[in-house]
């Protein structure tokens, strides 16, 4: 599904990613953990095509296509979704309009007809109800005035509607109350299938109790310094990062 080789990226001449190698197979769930400032969001940004990064070395292939050559919207409709660590508020653009446009962009890219308005409204209502978001938010501005937790839940609503092949969720669990964490986890689990993969960027073991990862990676100083199974997350929870990052240094 995704093949990252020796990826180096910098911002304003400052190297941030310093040689990432990561392969994600179809149906796999990978957790990426690591200290603040280690480059996790940068990795998500580079993969989704956020402007401002310079790729200095390496390659990324997404289902055989050179991802780094594609525009952000091309990556999206090819099936890649980024759940933002800080979802953006866009007053004046309604959630409903935005998401319908997005859903249709994905459908058109798959050669499907555009969704009809009624069908779309039914879908978005269902997804919002599942995440216990008030459905009147459908007609509010995108994330406008949403609480931190509501914004995160709204990311999952979007993921539900788009049904991506690869979802990179950047700290979607941060800022969620305990009940919301369960709703978000259910949302992720509901999409799990042999064709869909996930990258869960997180600081907390708790999410991984609900969504069992196949692999856990520790990103530190722009490199993956350790990879393991589920048990690695538990060990990090107990011991902190010192022992892995120290080991790497």
């Amino acid at each position, binding site marked *: 599904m995704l093949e990252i080789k020796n990826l180096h990226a910098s911002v304003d001449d400052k190297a941030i990613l310093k040689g990432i190698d990561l392969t994600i197979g179809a149906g796999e769930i990978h957790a990426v953990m690591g200290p603040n400032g280690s480059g996790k969001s940068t990795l998500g940004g580079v993969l989704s095509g956020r402007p401002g990064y310079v790729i200095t070395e390496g390659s990324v292939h997404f289902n055989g296509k050179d991802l780094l050559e594609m*525009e952000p*919207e091309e990556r*999206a*409709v090819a099936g890649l979704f980024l759940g933002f660590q800080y979802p953006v508020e866009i007053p004046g653009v309604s959630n409903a*309009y935005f998401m319908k446009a997005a859903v249709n962009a994905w459908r058109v890219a798959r050669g499907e007809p555009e969704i009809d308005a009624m069908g779309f409204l039914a879908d978005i209502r269902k997804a919002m109800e599942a995440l216990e978001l008030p459905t009147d938010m459908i007609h509010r501005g995108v994330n406008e005035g949403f609480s931190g937790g509501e914004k995160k839940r709204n990311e999952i609503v979007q993921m539900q509607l788009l049904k991506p092949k690869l979802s990179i969720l950047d700290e979607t669990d941060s800022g969620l109350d305990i009940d919301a964490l369960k709703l978000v986890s259910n949302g992720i689990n509901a999409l799990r299938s042999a064709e869909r993969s996930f990258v869960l960027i997180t600081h907390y073991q708790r999410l991984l109790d609900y969504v069992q990862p196949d692999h856990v990676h520790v990103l530190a100083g722009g490199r993956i310094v350790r990879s393991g199974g589920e048990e690695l997350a538990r060990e990090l929870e107990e011991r902190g990062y010192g022992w892995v990052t120290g080991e790497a240094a």
Partner: protein
Amino acid sequence: MNSVALDTLENVFESGAWPSRERDWRAQALAKLQHEGFPTKRQEAWKYTDLSDLDETPWTTATVSEDAVPDVALLPDTDRVVYINGIFDAARSNLGELPAGVELNPEKLTAPAQAPVDAMSGLNIALARHGLYLHVPAGVALPRPLEILNLTSDGAGGGMHHVRHQIVLEQGASATLLDQSLSHEAAALSTQGWSIELAADAALNFTRLQDTAQTHKAVDRLHATVADGGELVANLLELGARPGRLDLHVTLDGERASAQVNSMLYAIGKSHVDHQIRIDHRAPNCVSRTQGRALAQDRGRVVLDALVHVAKGADGTDSEQQLASLLLTPGAEANVKPELEIYADDVACAHGSTIGRLDDDAEFYLRSRGLSRDEARALLTQSFVRPALRQIPAAFRATVKRHLETRLPGAAAMENFA
């Protein structure tokens, strides 16, 4: 003063064959223009808008011929008054039955209520031959929106034309007007003068859409007075011309009168658009709202000056002014200036202006969900202008949308533009 234009204007005026009862005020208006000359950048009100090249053109009066006029998508169920090169065109107009007592005369010019306030209104008053006279008696609502089309034909290059309208709504009367100025490529000059009087509790929704070619010069002026409890809504869309200029002066003259001015300017290519808005609070407890949205891209330039003046004694004034500009590409320019002058007590006045660019984070967020760059930018631009479009009547929305779409790539995103 050495002006080719002023010399030829004298001849144009003399050959006008004006009715003798009009000669006096026309001659006075021309004298005002001759005395002041065309505006120059040295005048504060014309600091950013240059009309000095008017001086060099031997202007003639644009005449009506069989040449092409701009396509207009005609609205269903409206009354329509059409002017081509400043002359009423009965064939293209459409006037249905109106309630008893309504006087609507597309060719009637009355003596101006006041002497010309500047050179360009002098030009307008001196040379306007036709114009709409609308008088709606007390308590009467115009049954349909009224469209005024001010068209410049293809063959009007080097010519100028003028119309002057007078609208009077008596007590409790109401009307909805759509004024459109359109042209093809002709390098012409047009002026339009509006005098609007709203008596007590009268209500007018006035929408102006100026979308002439970048070779066109449109220099228009609108004066409105609003008496007790009267309500003026003015939606002003300045999209074309170089320059496209409108001076709007609203006087709130009776208690609880209100004015809502929504100004949207969008300069694209080489166009230059300019709104000078002045709202005078002259009576207590009046309300004014100004929403200005100025957009510029390419080499386009927008100017928006909005002044609220609260006179002594206009206590209890409630006024808000919100101006914002957005530069869509490097090279574009915006000059936006809010102004507030308060000489009364107990007033609530808020004003502010912002200048910005499209939010990169918002653009990326939209694109990361699959919207194209153009769609994302169109959506964001749309959300920026929306506050200035809210009060456009339903009957005109499709028309306004069509004009905005030609400027915004990813136009499909305009589906729910307001």
